Every structure is written in C-alpha cells, then in structure tokens.
C-alpha cells in the first residue's frame, strides 16, 4: 500500500516540478543573469551593473517606469470605483431572477480577445471614427476631434480591459454576504455610509484584494492597450522592454528592464497583501 502512494507522489510530482523548474524558475534566473552580463573595456564578456546604471542615468527610462507604476495603480483604483456599484447592484439590488443573466452579460465581452476590444474603441474614437461622425451629423461639432492617443483615453482603455478581473471576485464575495447583516445594521439605525464602510467593504475586502492584484498586474504588464490607444506618447514600460528586445536587439538591457518590472510588480503585490493582511494563496483562489 505504502509503495503505491510513493509511486503516486512521484508520478504527480515529476511533471509539476518539470513545469515549474524549467518554465518558471530557470527562465527567471536566466533573466537576472542576462541583465548582469555585458562586456568590459576590451570587449570581453564580464559581469556588470551597467544596464541598471543606464536605467537610473537616463531620465526617460525611470520616468516611464514611475509613470507606468502610478498609472497602473490609478487603473486599479478606477476599475474598483467603476465596477463596485455594478457588482453591488447585481448581487444586492436587482431582483434575484436577473442576477444570473446580468452576470453572464457582464462576462461575455471578456471572452473576446483584448485586441478586438481595443480595436472596437479605436473605430469609435479616432478622428474618422463613429463618435466623431455622429457628433458632426448632429451638428454638435464642426471639425472632427482626435480622441485617441492621449492619457485619458489610454486609462479608459486599461480600465475597460481590466473590469472583468475586478467584477468577478467582487460579485462572488458580495454573493456570499448575508443580507441580514445589512438589515440588522439598518434596523439599529446605521446610516448608509456607515453600513458601506463598516460592513460591506470589510466583508468584500477579500474579493477587493484579489481583484486589485490581478488588475494591477495586468495593467502593469499590458502592451496592447497603451500602444494602440495611447499611441507614441503612451510611454509604457513594456514598450521600452519590447523596443530593447525587438528594435534595438539589446537583450541584456531588455532583461534588466524586465527584471525591474518584475521586482516592481512583486513588491507592490507583496505590499498590498501585507496591508490587507492576506496570503497569496488565499487571495488568488
């Protein structure tokens, strides 16, 4: 009997170890090593911090880095603001027979590729786009306005592409909440803001944390939305990585940027978990 179990362990453990060691651990060590490789004054291979020095010395690089971090945090916060009322409406206000339908309707657009969704916004917003056409035919404006390629549009695009990952955990945590908690507070004379901040938000905090982690990570690592909706001025850090890899073919510099981005995302997620006193395993499952 014992033998079977050890054999079982081995059979389950081997593919999982292969997956994690070969595709997760080794590649990230390689990323770190590549970022530290360079050439010395004579052109021989050597270990060096020069790629990190470049990052700190060139203003444009760390400016983009900070900008990306701030915008990704802002995206996370805005996504929460936009989706929370909808999640609350679906789970607590609308008559129960519509809950399932509205939830499915909410999920549908996110099964479609992000590229298609961004493309849809481009058709709507660009200078020759649908919204401009409608505004002009209604006589509201005379000349078309370019609504793409600015920060506001880019943020809207990022919020749009991330909403699902906030909505799903919010809906599932609010669904698990017993309505009588709110009723009791109401009967005892609590005002709506008190109920909201003292009961609903603490109860949903688990869902908020897991949603926020995923949204932040996706916004930080997004490439499509900033390049297509933000255009040349978007200055998103993943574009710098892409440029180093594909355009300049400077893989060591690109690896350094990649490693910095990885550090940033790990740090912010770690800090978020610490602040809300949660563990990664619990927040993600």
């Amino acid at each position, binding site marked *: 009997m014992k033998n079977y179990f050890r054999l079982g362990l081995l059979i389950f453990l081997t593919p999982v170890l292969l997956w994690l060691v070969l595709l997760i651990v080794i590649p990230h060590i*390689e990323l770190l090593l590549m970022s530290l490789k360079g050439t010395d004054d004579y052109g021989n291979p050597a270990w060096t911090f020069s790629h990190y020095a470049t990052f700190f010395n060139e203003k444009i690089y760390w400016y983009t880095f900070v900008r990306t971090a701030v915008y990704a945090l802002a995206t996370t916060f805005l996504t929460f603001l936009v989706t929370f009322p909808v999640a609350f409406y679906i789970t607590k206000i609308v008559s129960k027979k519509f809950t399932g339908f509205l939830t499915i309707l909410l999920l549908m657009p996110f099964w479609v590729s992000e590229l298609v969704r961004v493309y849809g916004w481009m058709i709507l917003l660009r200078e020759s786009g649908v919204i401009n056409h409608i505004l002009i035919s209604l006589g509201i404006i005379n000349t078309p306005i370019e609504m793409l390629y600015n920060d506001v549009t880019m943020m809207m695009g990022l919020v749009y592409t991330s909403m699902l990952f906030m909505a799903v955990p919010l809906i599932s945590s609010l669904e698990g909440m017993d309505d009588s908690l709110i009723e009791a507070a109401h009967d005892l004379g609590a005002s709506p803001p008190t109920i909201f901040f003292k009961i609903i938000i603490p109860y949903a905090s688990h869902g908020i944390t897991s949603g926020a982690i995923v949204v932040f990570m996706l916004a930080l690592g997004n490439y499509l939305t900033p390049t297509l909706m933000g255009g040349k001025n978007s200055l998103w850090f993943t574009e710098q990585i892409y440029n180093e890899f594909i355009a300049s073919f400077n893989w060591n510099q690109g690896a350094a940027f990649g490693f910095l981005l990885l550090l940033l995302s790990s740090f912010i997620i770690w800090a978020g978990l610490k602040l809300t006193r949660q563990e990664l395993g619990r927040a993600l499952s």
Partner: protein
Amino acid sequence: MIRTLPQSGLYKIAFRFYVVLFYIFLFAPLIITCLLAFNDSSFPALPWKGFSLDWFLANGPDRVGLFHDRSNLSSIVVSAQTAFWVSLFSVVVGTMGAFLFEQEDFPGKQGLYFLALTPLVIPGVILGISILLTANSLGIYFEDNFGLDVPFLRPSFWLVVLGQFSFITTFVLLVVSARLKKFDRSLEEAALNLGASRFEVIRYITLPFLRPALIGSGAVAFLMSFENFNTTLFLVGSETTLPINLYLQVRDGSTPIINAVSFLLIVSTSTIALINLLLSNRKS
C-alpha cells in the same frame, strides 16, 4: 440600501441609470465592430453605405474577403493548433498538480504550491522574455558544444505553446483543485478497501467526479491560449497566431477585414462561453 429594505426613488433611478450606462460602455465597441463588418465601404467607419458580405466573401480584384485572405486564415489555424496543444498539456499537468497539492504530502509542499501560483502574478511580457532568453541560451549551448541546431529553441510554434502553457496551467490547477476539495475521500477509501489500486481509483472514481472541472478548465485554457498576446509576442516565429497577426494589421492601418475576423471571433467565443456556462450551471 438593498432589495429587502425601503429605497428612495432617486436612489433606485440613479443606480439603474448607472448600470445601464455601464452595460452600454461594455458593449459599444463590440457591437460597432460587428456592424461595420457588414458595411459596404472600404473603411471601417460610418457613414453606412448599405449591407454587404464583401468583407467575408469577396475574391478580388478590389476587395479580398476574409475567406480568401490567406494570411488571416492561416493565422486562425495556427492559433487553433496552439490552443489545442496548450489546453491538452495544461489540463494534464494542472490536474496532476491538483492531485499533488490536494492528496499528497511531502516536505516543501507549501513552498512548491506558492511557486505554482506565481505565474498568475508575473506579467505575461516578463514570462515571454525570460522563456525567450532561456531558449536562446540553450540553443547557443547546444550549437557550441554539440554542433546541434535545435529549431524549436528559436521563436517558433512550440516555444509559443510552452510559453502559454507555463501560466495557463496555474488556472487549470486552481479550477481542478477547487473541485477536488469537494470530493468525499471516503469514496476512495471504500474502493481501496475493496481491492482497487490507486490508479483504478483515480480512473474510475476521482476522474469522473472531476469531469466538469476538466472540461470547463480545458475550455478556458483553449480561449486563454487562443487570444493570448503578451507572452506570445516575444516567442512567435514565422507562424503568427491570430492576435499577433491582427495587431500587425491594426498597427499599420485597418480595413474592414479586421471587423470580419472580429465578428467571427465574437460570435464563436460567446457561443463557446455560453455552452460552457450552461453546462456548468446544469452540473452544479
């Protein structure tokens, strides 16, 4: 506040207004994209010039519809093949991982579980470049030491499959684990007592119980792979997947053929998603 409590009229109306706006915001880009696939115009823009199937069916000389556009058609095939292999591998390994973490005990289990979750919080771009770097270094190593040229270590079909597999497996692992947690282990013990081997138990008792989770996570894995962009971007070779191919077209100016592809994508993915949802609702 909530449905069981008295609500003021303004509160109700304002809330409903907001939710309606939200759903318009949600669907506007998709609906417009679909509509303009049928516009009889050379640009994906208004004004409406009449209904036309040109962007699906036309075969030159002015317009080439989707069904005659070799580059888009072949990228759809590449994406489907990629998604097939990714979902197959990730369901197999993810399920093994679920058994490992739910039913086995070994030193370092917590640490390994934590490691298995990390792909969810690593940005896709980083996964892409680190796998690219590793594959490239391995390729150079084989070439220098053994004079071997290993084609799949260069950006290629199988490298894309590996890159997507590396994080999609975690999703499968989470979905299957959640189902396995609900499994009543006394069923297994009964079978073991009756003389079944460990693998007979898994084959005839545990796997049938897991079937909905396996099908569901397989479908999700397929869709995630089919539409993945970030990781694929760095690993793709000459066989471009659909999202990469569409990106290149959108970046360099657009024709309604992109709308036609999008229309098909929207219709087919929402059908798969709906079937998946209905099946999982019926099962639970």
